[in-house]
């Protein structure tokens, strides 16, 4: 189990680096575009489209990371007050539901990529596969993370999570 956790952590670290690079690219492209527009009256043709696709990647990969970190916003007032046995059962239900939703994103995401991914993007010669794929990848990660979480609950190895209730953007 420890080896499995370590392997998943390694993957999570890779996902994190990916997200950070994409986010940095969003900042760079938008800022450079503002400068070129007002400074040189020139705008790269893809400067509106590419940040959108990067945002989709950052958001879906990030949503999977938030499953791993249990960072999604929830109403946990009752959950925290359930008796321990009920809480374990509910935790299983939650993980199962996340697994199920991740599965939908994975399986139907793959179908969606296969059926509709062949069209070209608006401003650059790449197909939509390049951003449609974010959805099944995120789904696959959610499936993995929900399994990992449940396995850890079962063997009683509570992973230490720094829970930060500040992710509400408000």
């Amino acid at each position, binding site marked *: 189990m420890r080896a499995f956790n370590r392997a998943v952590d390694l993957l999570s670290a890779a996902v994190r680096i990916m997200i950070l690079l994409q986010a940095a690219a969003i900042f760079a492209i938008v800022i450079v575009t503002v400068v070129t527009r007002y400074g040189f009256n020139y705008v790269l043709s893809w400067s*509106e489209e590419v940040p959108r696709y990067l*945002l989709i990647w*950052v958001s879906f990969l990030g949503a999977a990371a938030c499953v791993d970190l249990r960072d999604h916003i929830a109403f946990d007032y009752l959950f925290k007050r359930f008796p321990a046995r009920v809480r374990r059962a509910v935790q299983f239900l939650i993980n199962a539901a996340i697994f199920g939703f991740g599965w939908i994103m994975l399986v139907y995401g793959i179908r969606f990529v296969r059926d509709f991914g062949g069209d070209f993007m608006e401003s650059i010669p790449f197909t939509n596969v390049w951003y449609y794929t974010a959805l099944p990848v995120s789904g696959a990660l959610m499936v993995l993370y929900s399994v990992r979480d449940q396995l850890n609950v079962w063997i009683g190895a509570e992973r230490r999570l720094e829970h930060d209730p500040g*992710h509400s953007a408000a």
Partner: protein
Amino acid sequence: MTIVILFGVFAGLLLIGMPIAFAIGIASAVAAINIFVIDNGTIVQRMLFGINSFPLLAVIFFVFTGVLMARGGVAMRLVRLSEVVVGRLPGGLAQINVLSSMLFGGVSGSAVADVSSIGATLIPAMEKAGYTKRYATAVTLTSATMGPIIPPSIPMILYAYVVGSVSVAGLFLAGLIPGILIGVGLLIACYVHGRLYHDQPVPPMSGREKIVRVADGLAGMLTLVIILGGITSGVFTATEAGAIGAVYALFLTVVVYREIRITELPGILWECCLTNAVVLFLIATTSVFTFIMTYENVPQWLADHLFAVIDNRYLLLLVINLLLLFIGLFIDLTPAVIMMVPILLPIADRLNLDPIHLGIIVVVNLTFGLITPPVGTSLFVGCRIANISMTELLPPMLPLLAIMFGVLLFVTYVPESFMWLPRYFGFAR
């Protein structure tokens, strides 16, 4: 039937503690089983296209700016600036708390960032000066609600995105006056409280010190001028304003104040990515939810029936307010905005409510939810910082909430009081 499933599954999952975004997504997937034209393929398609939007990039920029401003010493400088302005009045520290939150609301759109930065300093300081801990926390929490109301505001960006046809600049301008009204109301409350219990102001300071503090604070406030000036004059879009705000915040906190090291930036960016992901994933799953609701004609149906029961405009506005306050008790501001707005739009349309006016009603109402039990994001952070329980906090908070409620009713029924500002700049009719 589909609707019963949709809302039933959602409410059930929400109550047992399912993350809201998944509760929404799963309820939609279950409800879709009943509808022939919506399958799982539609679900993934809606999710992808639901966040394929340039304006939504503003979220990550404004979150980043807010975090830098809170951690990089800008919040603290606004506290010191406020001390110059209101420190000598009765209830000095409480007044400083309110005024600095008001100013901080103008550089960041986040109440939570406000509580964790200003609260962490001022709650202990107020306690030391003889205020009760619960009063200090209550003042911190209520004043922090100005963050999402005074521009810039992330909830208003989300509102504009959900509505689709309303300008962010108009909403930002419209939020200015209600935010200031709440601030002034709270300042008066602190004055009265100070007169009654804490008539000792903070010690005086030299004129030179005052000038330094004001200049230092104004450097932070320049953010508001850049953002608001840029988007109202049409020089930048809200997204670009967010990017420029982020660059300015970086310059101020890393280069000028040197309170944030470059090595800390990846960690800060990572937090912002997580916050962004939470919000955008909510939008993604909610766009499936909204699609099903619209397909089943729910918002229209609700509007029809509501009007059949209540045909008085004033009563209906009150009902909308109470509904939003109730929702805010259980659901965080961000998901509540994304979910409730599609339901409210047809009603607002019948009432001939300006979408900007509706936006202010929605955001002001739902900010109550940030600080009211049983769940409130700011409330949790405040309780943790002050190490105090929710029940202890409630009595001193009630009069302050009453002031906010007064402002809420005022902006609901007297929209002319703030709508003239967006109208003057041509963003509202």
